């Protein structure tokens, strides 16, 4: 069933990574920006799993385990930060968070 080479999965992962990066760049809503970052991390997970399969090395899958942990930790702190910003400013628009510049 799985007859495509591992490299296709890797390319798909890179494509997803890029879509995520694009989301970070263009969305105004900070929560969506953050979701896009989660998408990037997941894309890397796909790359890890594909490599793991190709190399017959379980370590790639173990990496995914760690990346998930990191994603969870980032989610906790990141959402808390967004909440704190919202409390002070009543906004989650990236364009309106620009007190600090120049």
């Amino acid at each position, binding site marked *: 069933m799985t007859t495509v080479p591992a490299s296709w999965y890797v390319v798909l992962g890179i494509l997803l990574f890029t879509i*995520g990066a694009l989301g970070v760049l263009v969305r105004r809503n900070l929560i969506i920006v*953050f979701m896009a970052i989660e998408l*990037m*991390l997941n894309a*890397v997970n796909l790359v890890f799993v594909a*490599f793991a399969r190709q190399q017959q090395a379980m370590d790639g899958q173990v990496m995914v385990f760690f990346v998930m942990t*990191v994603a969870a930790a980032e989610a906790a702190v990141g959402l808390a*930060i967004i909440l704190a*910003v919202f409390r002070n400013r009543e906004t989650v628009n990236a364009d309106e968070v620009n007190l600090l510049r120049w």
Partner: protein
Amino acid sequence: MTTLAFPDVAWLPLLPLMVIGATALLVLVADLFSEGPDYDALGWLGLIGLIVAAVCAALLWNQSGSTLAGTLVLDRYGLFFTILFAVGSGLTLLLSMNYLETTDIRSGDYYTLLLFSTVGMVLMATSVDLIVIFLGLEVMSIAAYALAGIWRTQVRSNEAALKYFILGAFASGFLLLGIALLFGASGETLLPRIGEVAATGTGEQRLLVTIGAALLLVGFGFKVAAAPFHSWAPDVYEGAPTAVTAFMAAGIKAAAFAAFVRVFVDSLGPLAGDWRGALWILAVLTMTVGNVSALVQRNIKRLLAYSSIAHAGYLLVGMVAGGENGNAAVLFYLAVYTFMTVGAFAVVIALGRRGQPHEDLDDWAGVGLRSPFLGFAMTVFMLSLAGVPPLAGFMGKFYLFSAALEAGYVWLTVIAVVNSLVSVYYYVGVLVKMYMAEGGVEAEATSARPYLFAALVATLAGTFLLGLFPTPWFEIARRSVESLI
């Protein structure tokens, strides 16, 4: 059920790490039982823990080894950084103890996060497994994101945390993709194994390793605030609580360099021909952008942020130079930089009061005359940052640039020297404000803030010591990089 052979644990390499981690937990628990508003005891607890960790690391100086399946090593390189982080975090703790009184920050959480962050830093410096380095970086960063935003009632603190977090997570993504590619090329994440593949792998493997290296460069470049990955730094430095800014400038930058140097020298060394050129460009860009931008700043924290960017550039010069002298110069300069930058931020804190941070340069007018000690301290730090002999900053630059020259990078050295001379302009600009103008604010007597005073004395001592008697310290730095390569 299969039985797992848990690897043999050699405890010695873990000792400093565990001391700091245990201290963090202790502070976390102690915080539950302490009643405000005086949290000095927690600060002391953290300080003692860091000192013990530093002493442990110093005692292990002649030991070597590794533990936990070779993922964590005990070598001088790691010990050097462990001690440096303990010193940097300790100084930050010290100046925080007085700083927090002028803010709404609850000290207990603050100290805990600071110590957690330090644990991450030590991991970055002592591990040779990319995944552990990545996790250490995340431990350090996540605590740092929270620290940047810990003054929750301040919109600027919020904003700093937000920017730091979004961009930090974004950059982590690139770093992680880089690690994935290295894993794809080698099937491993241990640095030595990646080094073998980089040296002897097939063309395809090396292609993957090269691209992985480029992505790692992005991730580390971000953390050390190298141009063009520096744009977060000015905003975050300005917005974060000043003590946290000091911590970022000293500790986090040093930790990022610790991992940066180890990864690139230890495992990507065979590709040096490729990355040296890239680092050359980054170094030039970073120095120039940092220094030129600093010229037009009016806010002292922002000015120091750009100065910190410029210093990342000088440090990259040392990495480009490479070799024992170049890498040792990087280590030495990081130590020097810890003292001078923490000291400079300590003076910034000393000038601020509750509700009035006094970060605008105009507030500094005449401070040198009204508060001779603060003026003297700031003068020393500014001149040292500018690289005026015989202070530590000069010696640091001297080692860095002469290493670059020895390695034959004449133009890079010239650009670096010109840059450091341009930088004198804005550092002296601060002095001119302090000594040549009138009308600024009155600083609170330092005697009323004993911890801050102690931090200032310690950083001053460090700046003089490393400048006037640099040799033994440079020798230590040199021994520390012997274990690399």
